[in-house]
């Protein structure tokens, strides 16, 4: 045992941190180019194996950090990659610090389990090789994102996860909805990335400006894009005092807001949330990995990564809080009305990420407990939400439908799925001692102690709503009477490759709340441990219980109650069910405004006016020639007149010059 522990005391894992990126990448290339055409089975196997190895490696790093009681500062491994200019270059590297370790742990663990799950879930599909290659690509990109030591690397991998998400959502490329959803996802996030990109410009710009001026407070080895530099007090001080104002905002806040725009896009915050529900067109394991556990929390990660900057700007952080709170409530409301199990989960994801966001946002009140709380929730959420999705995937796999009203009665048929789903549901509802309880409690607490009472109340309300819609799904799926009796074959548990991940995740979802995250991840250590209020968790649990009871009332007994309520609030129900018509608004903007009023006129203008101008010039030339040819009258005396008068004009020209 001691020998085993000794392995982790040399710092080998940290030193070779590049391994974390290299393995998934090589596996992607290998699976994509070599294995894909050869063997479906081998593709899945190798892909899963490589991610598992990566996962173990990450655990190794964590163990090292844990055992050595020391977290390396700065990037563990770094290579120069792109040199823009002297003093302005981008590196590729692996940053090992508590935050990145947390994310690495989440990403690799969930990814490995999802890979394993996919072997069973995707069996029999035509393009399994492609699927696993993309999944590897995603894992690689996501890891690259979370280990990025500089903002440019984040952006690079940010885009790459976007593209892998695009590829995976559109995996069933013959399904028009999937194609549309993948396009939508990519374009919406791309639009958000525009803000992020501009934010990077501005950060880089001021970073570059101050780089030489700040002198010895900044280590020489850094470049203006490095987080170590951007979050250094010297730079923040410099940037904060930049007096340039736009729209009444200082350029500092504006930049952070632009960066937050990118985060909003990726994390599907209102109003850029529209892509996430549609993204459920992808294979369910993909939804579990990308659209629940990892990629969508990248926005939270980004804000957390740049937290020192955000803390310095109450405006930006206030916006984070507002957006987070609103999305949280908004998505939860919609979640109550959806019939597609994956969509319910998608809106639940939105709502939960809203929690994480506002937890970060409330920190402008002065207490930074929210930082820890947010990341804690990120951690626990990853497991229970992945579990929910994988469970949903199991059900869909068995029933071939997404509609919760067409399910029911699965308790007996799929006991493992039921059990794990229940664990996850309890966890997300915040029922102790499941993981969600702890993290949600901390978020509520952070809102309360920062005196953000409105946010606190909304958060409580949403906790109730969460409990309601999750149990709604739970009851409808497992307990209501079965509607699938007409099916040819009875639903049953799938192979072990699918149930094993469920079980493992269920364990994690249950116990991850006990992880002493706060010990490692904090912004100000003292603030993390100072407050403990008794009534906050009590309220939380009570509200959750209320939601649970309401769901039980509605969905286990007579359907009349539900119908009655729905009829009573028909108008509101309709609006919520249609997701507040946000999609329609977007559609109108893109189809009508952008396509009709910009793209079409531009195309028309180009063909008619610009090109017409060119053709006009040609036409004028021809017409002139056509007119001039009639000078040639054929009359010899006219020619003589031309000759003589030409001479006279010539004389005039010569005499006047």
């Amino acid at each position, binding site marked *: 045992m001691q020998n085993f522990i000794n392995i982790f005391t040399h710092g080998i894992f940290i030193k070779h941190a590049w391994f974390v990126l290299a393995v998934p990448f090589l596996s992607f290339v290998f699976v994509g180019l070599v294995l894909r055409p050869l063997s479906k089975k081998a593709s899945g196997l190798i892909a899963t194996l490589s991610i598992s190895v990566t996962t173990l490696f990450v655990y190794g790093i964590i163990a090292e950090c844990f055992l050595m009681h020391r977290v390396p500062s700065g990037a563990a491994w770094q290579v120069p990659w792109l040199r823009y200019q002297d003093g302005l270059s981008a590196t590729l590297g692996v940053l090992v610090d508590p935050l990145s370790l947390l994310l690495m742990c989440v990403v690799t663990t969930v990814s490995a389990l999802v890979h394993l799950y996919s072997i069973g879930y995707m069996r029999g599909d035509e393009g399994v090789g492609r699927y696993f290659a993309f999944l590897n690509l995603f894992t690689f990109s996501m890891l690259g994102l979370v280990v990025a030591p500089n903002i440019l690397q984040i952006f690079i991998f940010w885009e790459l996860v976007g593209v892998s998400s695009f590829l995976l959502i559109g995996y069933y490329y013959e399904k028009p909805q999937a194609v549309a959803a993948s396009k939508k996802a990519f374009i919406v996030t791309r639009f958000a990335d525009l803000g992020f990109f501009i934010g990077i410009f501005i950060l880089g710009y001021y970073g570059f400006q101050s780089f030489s001026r700040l002198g010895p407070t900044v280590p020489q080895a850094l470049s203006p894009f490095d987080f170590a530099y951007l979050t250094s007090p010297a730079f923040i001080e410099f940037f904060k005092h930049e007096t340039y104002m736009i729209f009444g905002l200082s350029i500092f806040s504006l930049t952070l807001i632009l960066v937050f725009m990118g985060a909003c896009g990726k994390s599907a915050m209102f109003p850029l949330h529209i892509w996430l529900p549609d993204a459920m067109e992808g294979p369910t394991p993909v939804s579990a990995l990308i659209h629940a556990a990892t990629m969508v929390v990248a926005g939270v990660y980004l804000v957390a990564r740049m937290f020192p900057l955000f803390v310095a700007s109450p405006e930006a952080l206030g916006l984070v809080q507002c957006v987070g709170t609103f999305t949280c409530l908004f998505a939860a409301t919609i979640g109550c009305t959806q019939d597609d199990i994956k969509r319910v989960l998608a809106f639940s994801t939105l709502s939960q990420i809203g929690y994480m966001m506002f937890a970060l946002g409330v920190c402008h009140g002065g207490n930074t407990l929210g930082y820890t709380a947010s990341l804690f929730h990120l951690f626990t959420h990853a497991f229970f939400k992945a579990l929910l999705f994988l469970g949903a995937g199991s059900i869909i796999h068995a029933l071939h439908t997404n509609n919760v009203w067409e399910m029911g009665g699965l308790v007996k048929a799929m006991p493992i799925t039921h059990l794990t789903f229940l664990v996850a549901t309890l966890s997300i509802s915040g029922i102790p001692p499941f993981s969600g309880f702890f993290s949600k409690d901390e978020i509520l607490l952070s809102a309360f102690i920062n005196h953000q009472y409105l946010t606190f109340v909304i958060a409580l309300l949403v906790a109730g709503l969460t409990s309601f819609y999750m149990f709604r799904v739970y009851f409808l799926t497992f307990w209501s009477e079965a509607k699938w009796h007409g099916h040819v074959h009875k639903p049953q548990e799938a192979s072990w490759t699918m149930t094993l991940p469920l079980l493992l995740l269920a364990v994690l979802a249950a116990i991850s709340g006990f992880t002493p995250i706060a010990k490692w991840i904090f912004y100000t250590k003292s603030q993390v441990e100072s407050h403990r209020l008794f009534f906050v968790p009590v309220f939380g649990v009570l509200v959750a219980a209320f939601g649970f009871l309401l769901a039980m009332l509605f969905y286990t007994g007579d359907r009349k109650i539900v119908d009655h309520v729905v009829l009573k609030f028909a108008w509101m129900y309709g609006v919520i069910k249609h997701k507040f018509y946000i999609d329609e608004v977007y559609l109108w903007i893109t189809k009508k405004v952008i396509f009709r009023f910009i793209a079409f006129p531009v195309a028309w203008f180009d063909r008619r006016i610009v090109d017409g101008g060119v053709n006009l010039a040609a036409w004028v030339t021809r017409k002139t020639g056509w007119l001039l*040819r009639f000078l*040639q*009258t*054929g009359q*010899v*005396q006219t020619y*003589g*007149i031309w000759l003589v008068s030409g001479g006279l004009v010539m004389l005039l020209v010569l005499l006047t010059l």
Partner: protein
Amino acid sequence: MLASIFNSPYFYPSIYHWLVLSSALFSIGIYGFLTRKNAVGILISLELCLNSGALNFVVFDYFRGNHIDGKIMALFIIAVAAAEVVIAMAIFVGMFKHKKTIDVTEMNQMRN
């Protein structure tokens, strides 16, 4: 009396008289060229123009030192003009065969 008239410098035409004459010739020639419809008429007008040139040479030769070269030039001009007329007439005849007229305003088969 008569002798004095003959001897008077005003009796002998000066260079200006000659130049006026040649200018008149030239102008008449051009006018004729532009207005006559008959090709031969045009040719005659052109001969006037040529002759005005020849006259100029002779006059300048006479008034500016009497080197022989201007006069020789005049001779050549006459010869060349004769050649020109021959050729032109030949072409006119050829033209007449086709058109049965030598009205130049009719000769606009090629135009535009």
